[in-house]
Each structure stands twice: as structure tokens, then as C-alpha cells.
């Protein structure tokens, strides 16, 4: 198929960016979206034009490195990551708009690449269990009810891609944060630091410039791992409890 691509180009963090239009012919429906961009880049390289920068690494939907706004949707039209989206989801003659994640807390580095360091800093603020290597008790000394373990796993599958933020009109990272708070809060190992964790993570979130949550739900709709919206209720509940406890 033949496509018209409108792509955000920005040479670096400080320069202004603009949309550029490219025509791409003979796109196979079996290509992944990123392979389609590889082919475009090969073409640009041949023509002496700087290839378009975009992030990806695993290309199997698990590392969270990829992420593009495709026709205004984070990760495009399917519930999956950008790297797992295939061209058969588009049709011949279509015009596709491709932009980087849009959020003040994720500044553009170049073209479609953004800086998501803020996510790491939120985890640094408390998204862990404080246990030094070698000091762990025997694994079977603390049984965990299967339902809790399963639910902890489900929310722990967040890949840190940032689509939730990009999709949110407020630019909130509540889904990402709620997933971590819920994961650790469901396990006995996460209890001792539970209050502190949520308070510190939320403070860091706000400090990074992410917006507040107004329960729109665009995050969960865009989330490739289908992290449910109720992790945000859990986040708020944990925050209220922590405040009640005097944090």
C-alpha cells in the first residue's frame, strides 16, 4: 500500500519542531509500524536526508522503549505497543500523523524521542522494598494468597512506556504510579513502607510536573498492558490512609 506520513521533526530539545510530510510506497501489511519507519529511514538516508529518530529496543512489546502518538492515539489504534502494531491496521492511501508523546514532564529529545527520566525518579522516591542483598528470609516463610499474588502480578506488568501520560488530557502519571503502589501494597513484603511510599511517590510525581487525575480514563484505554483504572482508586486510598497516619 501507499501512505502519506506526517511526522514531527525536531532537531533537538531546544529547537522548534514542525510536521513534515513524506510519501511512502509499497508498504507491506505484514510490516510492523516501526519496520515501516525503518524503510522510510532507509529511503531518507539514500536521499541524503537525516533519518527520523525514534525509540525502540525489544520490539516485542515488553521493554516499554517505543511509543508514538499515531493519528492522535498513544500507540495507535490497537491495544498494544507501537512496536507490536502492524501495517495491516491501516489502509492504502491513508494519511498517518506521527508525533512524540505529548507531556511537559516528557521533554522531546529529538524528533519522536522523548525523555521519560521522570518515571525513574518516581520509582526512586519509593517504588521498591528496602531489602539489602543477602538479608532476605527463606522464600516460603511468608505465604501469599494466590489471588493477591495474581493481582500483584497483573499490575506489575506495567512496562513504563508512558502512554497513559501521553493519552491523559491532564498529563497525569497516576496509572503508572497506581500500578506500582498497588503491586507492592498487595504483598506482605510491601507493607512496612506502604505509607511512606505513596506519599513520596506522589510528591515526586507532582514535582516532575505531571498533572492531577480527574478520572477521565483515557490512560487505561491507551495502556498496552491494560492496567485497570482501579489502581488509581487504590493509590488515592493509600494516600488518604497515609495522611491519616500522620505522613
Amino acid at each position, binding site marked *: 500500500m501507499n501512505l502519506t506520513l506526517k511526522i514531527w521533526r525536531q532537531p533537538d530539545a531546544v529547537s522548534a519542531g514542525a510536521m513534515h510530510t513524506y510519501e511512502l510506497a509499497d508498504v507491506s501489511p505484514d510490516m510492523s509500524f516501526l519496520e515501516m519507519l525503518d524503510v522510510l529511514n532507509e529511503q531518507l538516508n539514500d536521499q541524503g536526508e537525516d*533519518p527520523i529518530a525514534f525509540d525502540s529496543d525489544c*520490539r516485542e512489546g515488553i*521493554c516499554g522503549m517505543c511509543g508514538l502518538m499515531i493519528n492522535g492515539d498513544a500507540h495507535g489504534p490497537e491495544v498494544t505497543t507501537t512496536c507490536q502494531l502492524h501495517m495491516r491496521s491501516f489502509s492504502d492511501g491513508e494519511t498517518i500523523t506521527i508525533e512524540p508523546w505529548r507531556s511537559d514532564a516528557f521533554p522531546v529529545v529529538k524528533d519522536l524521542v522523548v525523555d521519560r527520566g521522570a518515571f*525513574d525518579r518516581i520509582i526512586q522516591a519509593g517504588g*521498591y522494598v528496602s531489602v539489602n542483598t543477602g538479608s*532476605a528470609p527463606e522464600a516460603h516463610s511468608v505465604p501469599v494468597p494466590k489471588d493477591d499474588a495474581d493481582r500483584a502480578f497483573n499490575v506489575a506488568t506495567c512496562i513504563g512506556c508512558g502512554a497513559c501520560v501521553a493519552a491523559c488530557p491532564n498529563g497525569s502519571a497516576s496509572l503508572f504510579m497506581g500500578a506500582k503502589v498497588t503491586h507492592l501494597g498487595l504483598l506482605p513484603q510491601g507493607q512496612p513502607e506502604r505509607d511512606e511510599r505513596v506519599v513520596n511517590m506522589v510528591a515526586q510525581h507532582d514535582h516532575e510536573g505531571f498533572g492531577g487525575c480527574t478520572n477521565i480514563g483515557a490512560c487505561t484505554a491507551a495502556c498496552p498492558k491494560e492496567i485497570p483504572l482501579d489502581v488509581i482508586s487504590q493509590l488515592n486510598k493509600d494516600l488518604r490512609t497515609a495522611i491519616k497516619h500522620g505522613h
Partner: protein
Amino acid sequence: MSHSHDMDMPDTVTSTEASPTGALDGEYDDAMGYYTPGEPLVDTKAPQGPIADRWQNRKFEARLVNPANRRKLSIIIVGTGLAGASAAATLGEAGYNVKTFCYQDSPRRAHSIAAQGGINAAKNYKEDGDSVHRLFYDTVKGGDYRSRESNVYRLAEVSTNIIDQCVAQGVPFAREYGGLLDNRSFGGVQVSRTFYARGQTGQQLLIGAYQALERQISAGTVSMFTRHEMLELIVADGKARGIIARDMVTGEVQTHLADVVVLASGGYGNVFYLSTNAMGSNVTAAWRAHRKGAYMANPCYTQIHPTCIPVSGSHQSKLTLMSESLRNDGRIWVPKNQADCDKDPREIAEEDRDYYLERIYPSFGNLVPRDIASRAAKNVCDEGRGVGPEVDGVRRGVYLDFADAIDRLGRDAVANKYGNLFDMYARITGEDPYSVPMRIYPAVHYVMGGLWVDYDLQSTIPGLFVTGEANFSDHGANRLGASALMQGLADGYFVLPHTIRDYLADGPFEPIGEDHPAVVEARTSVTDRIQHFLSVNGTRSVDSYHRELGNIMWEYCGMERTETGLKKAIDLIRGLRDDFYRNVKVLGTSESLNQSLEKAGRVADFFELGELMCIDALNRRESCGGHFRGESQTEDGEALRHDDEFAYVAAWEWAGLDERPVLHKEDLVYTAIEMKQRSYK
């Protein structure tokens, strides 16, 4: 047949043991003219004595570092996968001054994240006869008696601590209804010792290690450099003292100095261009160290996985693994007649189908070990009976058919077992595996080879330690399923932190400045190389060279290797490498994010590695583990090992570009286990 208890091979697979086969002529030296024989190599760090005491003894003998001095000792760790993140967190907790590097935008994205199946540990929670000794035995045997027994024993020994540590971090492993941890059995192993978190074990383990690392970053013991690529090692006065890294965003070339350097930079499967590795997986960190004096061990040992989704066109950028458990219920076949290859498979009559694994290996059928299944698939495709789209004139795919399983078990039961895999397949191929047979093809998955290390995980350069997939140490010629995750975490949490202190006890070493000749040399070599790539202004993209190199490697140094093929590959690689330096086209500047420039450096190193892999494969005129030499097989086409000649680690020393590498042999001596040749027929 050698090996291989591989992952997801069910425990119904049994094997018979045959005695080692007779001596080989002894006159052969296929690699003559390609290498220079060197002095034998001995690991001087492994203690003697009963195998079960060695690690305790080594830990005791390794000198301690006073807590007050630790802050003054600086450690550079390249890589934040399981091997790097676990080491960085642990050494940070101990109070050392740690700097960590990764090329992605966050340490959490290292390719360990993609591991699916699970992690082994000798917990014996199932009371099914597992023990440290059995895990040790299975690993040495699975590695086809080409690994070092002391290291493997230690790996099995510390495996149990890993599970405790991960659970304490909040890793949500699968559990049983009683709330205890669940285990499954993998790879023909008769015991259930694999811990897992659905099909995302690597992700959950890495997030545990990443969180421990982030905790140390916030505590100020570890500094993290994301989007920084190590491009050179600094070796001053005989010791590894730092690295040259490029800030991939600003292009700044930086010098980082330390008392010791750890490489945890992962595997080099991307030398084949297409593999299940991540796009950025590379050999650069390890290769630059190799060029500075670190020996490269057994580079030709590659693991090829039979159940990956086939290539769909020349645009293909990577390959995706599907769990091998699919072979428990799927039947593998191709058409008997070439003329049927482009037909709808459902219209090919039963008698026109060749269930070739069931035909050639009646007792194991579709469950033959990984390498047998892989090689057989390649053979039928080479015969022109492959299926699926034609890519570069050949159809590379075989059917994996669930029609019988659906008839027998019902669609729901099949969906229950394999639903998520079927969904993934459907998303990638656009075909519905419930109604049309899946297509699969083998892909490069893991490399057992890597930088040579002693028992302390120290390379031949003092002060350079290597952990995880980047070293060669534990898996011999073939890795068991679910053992790479175990090794990465064993190295990082429990081994390196003890062995590195013995080295650091002599530190801090005399400070060196940016004007030290070794630093200047390393920086200049990095900037010269960058300038070269940007100034060639040729006609071909980096990717096009990488793809061509990958084709050569896959064709001649892939599933089956022969003397003629390997020699041809070496010529082809040399020619292509020359052309690359003269004709590559890298646009843009070095002062900003430049992904073509990053790739150019990686591909340049893959050329040199690829050549060494071929020389290593040429030298090893035996079939063992993942290395199959066409010249060394039984009449039935089974792999034939030659213990009398090749029971050694091949450790290669760099001698200069276009110079013959020097081969140092480390003899493998087994005291706690007896060498046996396996047979699966």
C-alpha cells in the same frame, strides 16, 4: 547425540547414555593458517578440594574491605540487565561508589526484560529429588561437558538465595492455592525447579533488580548514566581503570575513571542481524575490552531456538520467540512436494504431508531437542519445501499444526493452554492459528560464548570483571532453559560482590588523570572512529551491511558449520568489512542523537567478532551443544563430540586487525562428574 534438556521440553523425554566415541585422527587442524597457537590457560582462582566446599573457601579467602574505605573505592558497571542491576544495587548497598551505564533511556529496559519462561533454583520445594548436586549435574550435562565444573557448582549452590532475595523484593512469582510458590518442569529435566511469573519472568525479575538499583540511586551510592554507550575500555599500567562513553543525546565523549570495571553488557546474538535480541544488543563493550587484552572464549557457541515466528519480508528487523511448549501439542510438517508449498495448507491431503520429525525420529517426534528440530527445519527449507512467503527466493518456514490437538482436546482446551501465544502469533502474522497452521522457523536466541573469566569472574585484564550473558562461564556449549536468568542474578547478587572485594582490597589505586597516555589513546580512538564514519559519505546504509553480515553468519556459521563454508564466510566477511569502511553512509553529526552513527560502531565490531566466531568454529572440529560441525556426525546424522581432542575452552587473544588471533586452551577437568555422550534415539 549431545545435550539438551531445553526449556519447555516435557519430562517425558528420556535419554540413553552411550560411552564416548573413539578418538579422531588428531591430524586435523581446519583452522591452520587462521590462528596462532598460544600458551595454555589456567584458572588460578578456583580453590581445590571437594567441590561442595570451594565457594565457601573462596569467600573466606577473599579479602575484606573495611566499610570506612568502601566509599573511596569506585566501580564502573556497564549494563543494567539482571547481571548489572543486581551487582550495582548490591555493591551500592555495601557502600562502594558505583557508576552504572546503559544505552536505553532507563535501566529497566535491558533485554533481560524479554525473558519469558522462568528461572531455575534448587529449592526442592516439590520434594522430587532435586538438589544442588542435581542442578549442577544437569547443567554440566546440558552444556555437553564444555563448562567449568567449579563455576557451575557454585551457580547451583547460590540459586536458592536468588529466589529468597527476589521474593523479599516483591517479585510476584506464580503461587499455588496454599500461597506457596509454584514450580514447573522444563526441558526434559525430571524435576520441577523452575520458578516463573506467567510468561514474563524476566520482566518481573528485572523490575525487582531495577527497583533495588533505583533505591541505591536515591541513596546516592550509585550514579546512573542512561543513554550512554561505552565505546572503549581504559587500561592503564596493566589494569582496567575506566571507560570512554558517549552521551547519546549530546554526543559528548566522556571519560569515566574508577578502580575497577564490570561489564554486564549482555549477549552478541545480533551479529546474525536477525535474532530474538533487542535492536540495540551489541558486542561493542565486550569487543573493545577484547581488543585491549581480554580473551574471548568459545565465541562460536550459539543457541538457536526452533519456535520463532518466520521472517515475513526483507523489511524484517527482529525475530520473536514463541514458547517451545507449543511443540507438546503441535505437529510439525512441510509438503512432500515442492509444488504444494504455496498452496493453502488445509487443502494439502494428509498423504502429501511430511511430518518429518515424526518420520526421522519416531521415538521423540516433535519433541526432539532444540538443535535437532532447528536443523531439520533448515534442511527441509533448503530442499525447497519450506512454506510461507518467499524472502530472497526461499520460503523459510515450516507448519506447526494444531488441527489434531483441537480435534482431540477441543478448541477451548487448546486456547486455555496456548491462548496468549496464539494471540501474539495472530497479531504479528495476521493469521488465525486456530484455523490455519502456524508457521515457525528457528532463530538465534542466546550465546554461550563470551569474555573469558576466572572463578572470580575476572577477565584476563586485571580489574575487568564480566558477568551475565557477556561472560562465557557457566553454560558450556549449550544452555539449559531458565538458567540464564539464574546466572545473571547469581553473578550480580551473590558472586561478584564477594570476589571483587579481593581485588579492591589493594585499592584505591593511584589516581590517573585525563592526560594519562592510556586515557588519551582511548579517547582518540573513539573520536577518530566517529569522525571516520561521519566522513566516509559512501552509498550504503549501516543496516544494509548489518543485514548482509547477518546472512553470511546465518548461512555458514549458523545451525550447521563445515570447513568449506566457514572458510568462505571468513573471506566474505573480510571483503564486506573493507567495503563497509570505504562505502558506508552515515549522515548527521556527532553532536546530537544520531542512531545511524551508534549502529555504525556496533556493526564495525560485529564484523570482527563474526570473523572470530568462524575461526573458532573452524578450529572446533567436533559437534557439541549448539555447535554442529557437518564433518562430525554419526551415520544417523547425530552430533559427535570428541572429548579426547576438544575438552577445552578456546580462549582467543586479539593480535591486531588482520593478524591471526592467538588460541589459548583451558583444559576442562571434571572431578565431581563423569563425561558422557548422550543419545536421544
